[in-house]
């Protein structure tokens, strides 16, 4: 047994894992200390990464070594960055509104573009292709099988979509109710949603179980170092 980096890392890992596991029994000071240390280390690490791998190579290095055009162009983000840093001070925080508006504008556009081009169009296309028996036949899938599976998926997609329908008519008693047909389809949609969440839940559980096994195995690894 020597104080090698592997040992230190293994020892700390072992102790901290036990302390986190103690949360199962209930909140306790040792768990708290572990959590605060963890939050502190991870935040410091991410901040260091932000400096070394975002700000330095993308802003400061080109400002120092880049061409004149590049430097001039980077003056804008530099000014915005300085304004954003004003958010640190409550009295100057108003100055940071402009860079935040910039970020929000870009973020909203990325969200809208991503939703349309990344989800809506591909998903619609994939859904429409569900009954493409010819393409399925080329992949060696029997047309009848494709037809049945495709129909179920189509019904599932549409009923799930309809489940979310918000518009409703007010009914006596202060609540609101959707049309009976929509309610009927929505019920079917709920079944598909429940199945989907059941599958995903099982997936998350498998991941968590693997994490538990890995942690317990790490104990073995640490014990082997002793």
């Amino acid at each position: 047994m020597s104080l090698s980096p592997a040992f230190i890392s293994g020892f700390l890992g072992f102790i901290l894992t036990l302390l986190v596991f103690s949360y199962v029994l209930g909140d306790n000071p040792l768990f708290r200390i572990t959590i605060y240390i963890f939050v502190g280390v991870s935040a410091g690490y991410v901040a260091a990464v932000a400096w070394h791998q975002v700000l330095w190579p993308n802003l400061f290095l080109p400002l120092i070594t880049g061409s004149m055009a590049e430097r001039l162009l980077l003056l804008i983000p530099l000014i915005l960055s300085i304004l954003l840093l004003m958010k640190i001070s409550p009295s100057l925080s108003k100055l940071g509104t402009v860079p935040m508006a910039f970020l929000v504008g870009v973020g909203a556009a990325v969200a809208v573009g991503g939703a349309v081009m990344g989800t809506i169009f591909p998903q619609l296309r994939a859904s429409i292709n569900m009954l493409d028996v010819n393409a399925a036949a080329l992949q060696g899938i029997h047309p009848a099988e494709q037809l049945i599976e495709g129909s179920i998926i189509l019904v599932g997609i549409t009923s799930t979509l309809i489940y979310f329908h918000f518009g409703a008519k007010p009914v006596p008693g202060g609540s609101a109710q959707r049309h009976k047909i929509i309610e009927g389809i929505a019920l079917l949609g709920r079944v598909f949603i429940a199945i989907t969440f059941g599958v995903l839940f099982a997936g998350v559980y498998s991941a968590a179980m693997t994490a538990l096994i890995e942690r317990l195995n790490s104990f073995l690894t640490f014990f082997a170092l002793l």
Partner: protein
Amino acid sequence: MSSVHCPLCGKPNPEELEECQFCQARLKPIMAPMELLVPESTEGGGSPEKVQDLLAGLAAQAGEDEEVIPDWLADLRMESSPDKGVANATPKSPEPGKEEDWLTALRDGSDLTAESPAARISESKPGVTGELGGVLPEWLTDLHEESAKEPFQPVVGDLTDWQTDEAAKEISSDLIASTEDYKKPASSSNADIPEWLAKFTAEQTSKEAKNQEAAQIESTIPAEPSIEGSEPMEPPVLTMTGIHYGIPVQDGGLPKEPTAPAENPPESTTSEGEKTSDLLSDLDKETAGPSPEKPPETLVEDTSAEIPEWLSSLSTVDRGFVETSPEPGAEKSASPLETLPSSSTPALIPDDEALPGADVDELLSKEMPDWLSSVGTEEREQEKPTEGAEIPLPPEQDESLTPAELPSWVQAMRPLEAVIPGLPLKEDGEKILEKEGPLAGLVGILPTGPALDSTRKPQPYGIKLQVSQIQREGAALLETMLASESEPRPITAPTMELSKRVLRWAVAGILFVVVGVSTFTRTRITPMAGSYPPQVGAAKDVINALSASDPVLLVFDYQPGLSGELDAAAAPVVDHLMLRGVHLAILSTSPTGPVLAERFLQKTQSAHGYQRGGQYVNLGYLPGGAAGILNFALNPTNAIRMTVDGQPAWKSQPLQGVHLLSDFAALIILTDNAETGRSWIEQAGTFLRSSPMVMVVSAQSEPLLLPYYESDQVKGLVSGLVGAAAYEYINGRPALGYQYWDSFSIGLLAAEIIILVGGLWGLRTSIRSRRKPEVDNG
């Protein structure tokens, strides 16, 4: 003493309080600015000029406002008002021909105009004009809200939390709307009363006169009023007072003198102060955020289609008198805003009166239990005759009075002296002996002195308490509630908490023991699955097709928490890659990715002896999420310039000859997040050209990414420990998957049993606990 219901907690508060005594929510949000206006304008009516100036200023500002408002916005504002205007103009019970004199009608109209804005505001429904401020983009609403700066902006500023931003703006914009109207009576009064106006007022009056009270009001106006002297600018002041105190207009007591409108407001506001909170509280109720499924009910109906023709035509003409700047939307004058000003006024009284009885009830009934709201209704109904009695009787009615017929028991009380002539009548102290009329001979029947000033009838009180069935039920309910408060309750919470905690411990204990025992004993009894998923075989085929020294981009996009699963899943794949002798470029869109990659290689692949800078290069963190991925896919050399250790990235050995994304022989994505996986597929997929993409994902993401394998966008997919075990199995190289397999299988089995047993137990408990109340009730 009337009370104001707090819009936040719903509890009643004395009217004079500014904040709720229970929750400290502000009760009178628009008081302050209005108070600034009211004293000046109402005190003795002595300074009409001041008022005129002020209102002219308001009007001017409103005019300026209109100047800068684009026509489409103006249209919007117009659209917002028909609700009010039309509803106000809707008479309750037509009774034509009551008032034929156009002069009287006009005067009457102008008097009533004075009260209109108050009523309009009281009736303004939320979500109309004012919403513009709250809902439109700033660049749209700026212009609209400019008009509220002076003096209305403070109104908005004073609003507290319970009044939403939106609601605040509604009120203020209603005020703005009313200020725009103020100038209209003024201009019309200066004019020579054209024919159209006479016609208008006559019509208006005839419609409105069906209301009994309105008829009485009209009758109080003297025969020779001075139109000029009626101070057309006064009305808005009265309006403001009305807003301020929330006075229902009919309570104000109508002027007896021709010039009374200017002088009466203070009187009216004080005498009816008790009832004043109604309108304000109504407003509050509307603004205080009804529950989502109960959107605020409109107090008035939006009946733009029902705008009478005369009304719209009036507005058109009326507009001509107003010195406003030309407005593009003016030709659409049938639209609501124009209908508001004077045209809508006559019907205000009936409308206002109708409010508490109908719509307010509707509102109240949503907030209160039935029995409570019905009590309120009953009380209001009881009040109505009293209010009616306060209004001076018109002369015609006085003349038509018939001698009262006394009931027999009163007749019997008459002293004998009064009946028998000649007997002296005795006056008893302060009590006055009635000498004539039906009460002749009775002593102390009619009150004297101050009592005569009282306009209220004494409330008749029965000896027996008159309680309706509903009230009785309500009282019983209240009694039960109070009784239940004092009843000792069994303390169940700690037991529940303990059982929950024990259950949690039991679950944790089972899982830890089962998995721990399996891990520490290193059992290997669970067989591998008989069949492996085809996507795993496809991944193996892709890697098999790679040649030595091919550059492969390996993306570590998982978080440390999932490293247990992803390390295990990725190990056989990376092992296979290294066996093929490919060069690796490591990249991550998560800041923790680069260090996870180093740890992974050191922990699981150290046997291959890959050296950084030699066989692999760590390009570090690629910021920007999906946008960063696109940036990298477009131009990798520009997106990442240096490696994680500060070396020029693209000059390193593993990246020789790589300039584009398609120069990589394959792209392997290791991710726990389906979103990240999709981002890579969507952003980088097209730039890969013929190079294949393989994914190693967490089990939770499998159902979401599987369709991409089926659509051939991803050439291979290894998911979770199951995928890892299958990969190891078909590749013949056991690694972490094999090592964890037994524990995984046993852990899952334990979980399945717990879910099954726990689920059945939960089902039974739930059904039992549901049945229990039924049995108790039954």
